[in-house]
């Protein structure tokens, strides 16, 4: 198993994508083998953190006890994969160019990727 590189889930303000050395498929969530060609040979690269916002939802019925509205989005990274994150820019909508910021909004003050319109 490959050694995990510390990313935002470990408190480092960075988000990695993995690129298959054989077929070039790029993915986000940790996986030992390329889901397309099965190769175990791949490179982990830091994402630039920019892309196209393809979805936004305002969550009214939450999993935690909080009554506030929670905003989530999907960002299609310029590298290809889709990333789920919070949305802190109230004007961000699907179709907008967006960038990732890391904010300490997570459980116990952990980092979370959050999206805003790109300047």
């Amino acid at each position, binding site marked *: 198993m490959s050694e995990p590189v510390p990313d935002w889930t470990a408190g480092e303000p960075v988000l990695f994508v993995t690129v298959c050395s054989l077929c070039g498929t790029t993915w*986000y969530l940790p996986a030992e083998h390329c889901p397309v060609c099965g190769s175990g040979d791949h490179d982990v690269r830091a994402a630039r953190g920019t892309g196209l916002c393809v979805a936004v939802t305002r969550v*009214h019925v939450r999993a935690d006890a909080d009554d506030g509205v929670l905003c989530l989005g999907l960002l299609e990274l310029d590298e290809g994969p889709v990333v789920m994150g919070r949305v802190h820019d109230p004007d961000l909508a699907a179709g907008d160019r967006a960038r990732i910021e890391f904010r300490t909004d997570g459980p116990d003050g952990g980092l979370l990727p959050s999206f805003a319109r790109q300047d």
Partner: protein
Amino acid sequence: MTALLTGVGVTAYGRQPGPDSVDWQVQAAELALADAGIEPGEVDAVLTGYSTVAGHLMPANLFSERFGIRPAIAFGLSVGGATGLAMLAEATRLVESAAARHVLVAAGENRASGQSRETSTRILAQVGHARYEVPLGGTVPAYYALLASRYLWTFGLGPEALASLPVQMRAHASRKLGAQFQKPITVADVLSSRPVAEPLRLLDCCPVSDGGAAFVVSATPTSERSLLVAGTGQAHRHQHLSAMEPGGSGAVQAAQRALGEAEVTWEDVDVFGIYDSFSITVALLLEELGLTPPGRAGAYARAGAFEVDGRFPMNTHGGLLSYGHCGVGGGMAHLAEVATQLRHERGAAQVADCEVGYVHADGGVLSAHVGVVLKRVATA
């Protein structure tokens, strides 16, 4: 070797406090065995779906002891909403390989009254990635809302585009005894219901229910009402939304495997049961399967395509959206309804001359897919 669906049993779904998960499984199993016309002692294999309320390690053993049978084979299965059809597929293999003569498939859960809404929401949200998604605070409706947001943006549609689907499901449920919700609704009702995770509103989302469902799969027909399990197919291409290929969830692969095994095409299918946990779920499935053009599932619903006399009669019991959703049993009710249609026993809501049916379920966030083709034996 062939496998036959000889019995189906579905209880009423709704908020029905009292029975626990295993009680619901027992009720459904009694119905299915009576429907098949066999005795409990004739069952030699038992497959049981998980219950989020019971949370037991050995659901098939738990059920069998309580029901009072001692099968040669028993196991539980867990692929989310696709579990019921996945169990049917395994039951088919057990019968085809002569490992069993009668397989009882049972599921049931007191999901509505056995746990709080908060607990249910939190447990179900765990289909998200524990490290990369769950900490963001999402829920299952939120994950599907993201798919809905992307869908509406992709096709330049407003939220009303999906609203005709729950309206159609409710119209079906109004003609089905046992459905959780039967009072007809309009597009305006859907759009004015309270937001759950925008663009999804309350009436875009299936309810949480108490209830149970069961099937009997046998090596030989037990009556003229027995149906052929003509084909099953599955696909498992991702678990998490962040790993899903847009437009390539696996629905097509599962369906093509099932249709191929049954040696039929969409042209041959007369009646459908398509998983509808949310309005967006059934829209995405219909479009990925190629039954309606991309972005047009709602428009097809408005035009009556999914009515009893429409081009694709679908979920004529009301689906998860209106018949209800008691966990694993939820997606099994679609198959029981298609079976009832193929037996020509659906009375006023009978689809005329139906001979071949297709049922599709997904689990997680379009993560696990199972398709099943049923045929009247005379057709096969």
